[in-house]
């Protein structure tokens, strides 16, 4: 609803060659992380070769979508207009349950398509368990995070 009051959209990700599969899987509702075909090590952000074994082979491993909040901020203005409209909102880092070294920046929301300020700030807590959901923002499926126990 608040989105309708702003003229500028939220920023879309600038998708590169290495990262493109992440967004293609996201469009199918799947959270997948790049992994090495030779040594199976996960790596994020995606990159051309494996820092462990230098293999250029990559696969995309499906994650459960569960994680915990590792850290968070509440940005206040000055901000870009689309974000200022929801400020203060939250931005969180989620440590994935399947791979704690893999952390994703995202937003804690009350429902997949709810705005970035839809969760009360007192619910933000390091260690809180969260679950991924996806929502369409400007034609791209963006990961969002919901509290496991809302």
């Amino acid at each position: 609803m608040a989105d309708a009051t702003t003229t500028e959209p939220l920023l879309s990700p600038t998708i590169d060659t290495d990262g493109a599969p992440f967004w293609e899987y996201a469009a199918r509702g799947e959270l997948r992380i790049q992994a090495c075909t030779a040594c199976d090590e996960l790596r994020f952000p995606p990159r051309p070769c494996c820092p462990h074994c230098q293999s250029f082979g990559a696969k995309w491993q499906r994650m459960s979508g569960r994680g915990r909040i590792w850290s968070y901020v509440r940005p206040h203005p000055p901000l870009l207009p689309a974000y200022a409209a929801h400020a203060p909102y939250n931005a969180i880092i989620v440590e994935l349950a399947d791979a704690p070294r893999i952390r994703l920046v995202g937003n804690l929301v009350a429902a997949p398509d709810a705005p970035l300020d839809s969760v009360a700030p007192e619910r933000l807590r390091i260690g809180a368990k969260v679950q991924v959901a996806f929502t369409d923002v400007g034609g791209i499926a963006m990961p969002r995070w919901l509290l496991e126990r809302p």
Partner: protein
Amino acid sequence: MASLKDATAIVGIGQTAFAKQLPEEEKTLACRAITAALDDAGIAPSEVDAFASYTMEETDEVEVAKAIGAGDVTFFSKVGYGGGGSCATLAHLAAAITTGQASVGVAWRSRKRGSGPRPWKNTAVQLPTPAQWTRPFGLLRPADEIGMLARRYMHEYGATRDHLFNVALACRNRANQNPAAMMYDRPLTREMYMSSRWISEPLCLFDNCLETDGALACVIVSAERARDCRQKPVYVHSVAQGLPAQHHGMVNYWNDDPLTGPAWTAARHLWKQADFAPQDVDVAQIYDAFTPLIPLSLEGYGFCGRGEGGAFTEGGALESGGRLPINTGGGGLSEAYVHGFNLINEGVKQLRGTSTAQVPNAATCLVTAGEGVPTSAVLLRAP
């Protein structure tokens, strides 16, 4: 193996006024700071044959050299990663001069960040990792990116807002002694800090550096030549750059230990080449774009143990007469934010004995560049 240890010295420093808005353009400010530094050194512009600055510096060597009347230039270098490059400009010039590539080097930074645009507002120019993985989620500004690490640091080690206030206060108190500082006549109280507006929780207004128009420069020559210069030489004792394994810049969220940043890498190399240790440092100029960078840097450069950076700030440790006086001109938080170059010049002033918050008999000074980005650092030593 050739060593840079004490092989070169800073013999001239120059600066413009610092203000939210200066009328002159960046190119003019650059030339003013550089000619002031050369005048301070007693070296003619025609003798300059080396330049070093930041990749973010918008006045290039061609413009500077032809404006000030430099001679034939045989070495020029620019270092990346914003404020992480400050001390590396000295490192590159020291290496060039020590190896005979050049004889008179000028390092500078000129920036109208006070009256000019905020870089984060330009969504057309974005670093690839943030553009895809962090900015769409509203992590728009450096304050948001560092705020994430600050929150985690406070959570893991029990650091508090009072610790961050100790940093802001020490810088402000020194600025209150420095007539050139933007915050010279603006004292800070704990109440002002605790009730100020948020920028990105957990960081408030006073956890953020200033926005400044201004320029600074310094002149570096061989130690041998320095003996004949106008000013007491300040020796470049040790220099280091640092890009740690699996580091990701200011969004350093994807390795085993995101709270161990480039400071640790630069520090290992810096101390390995030095004749003295952290406990022998009389005064430090630590890059302070944000207050949490100070406790992180105190740990990284070995002034305290892991997780002890917050507690280190207690009891006036960072103030004049404390365990480690820092940012004695006011730093980026309260003197001027010119990508850390004012920290270099302040280090030189301390070792000349001319600081407005002089540490008695200061003979050693650590100067650091931006923590949280690929960084650099220098140990300065008085003769």
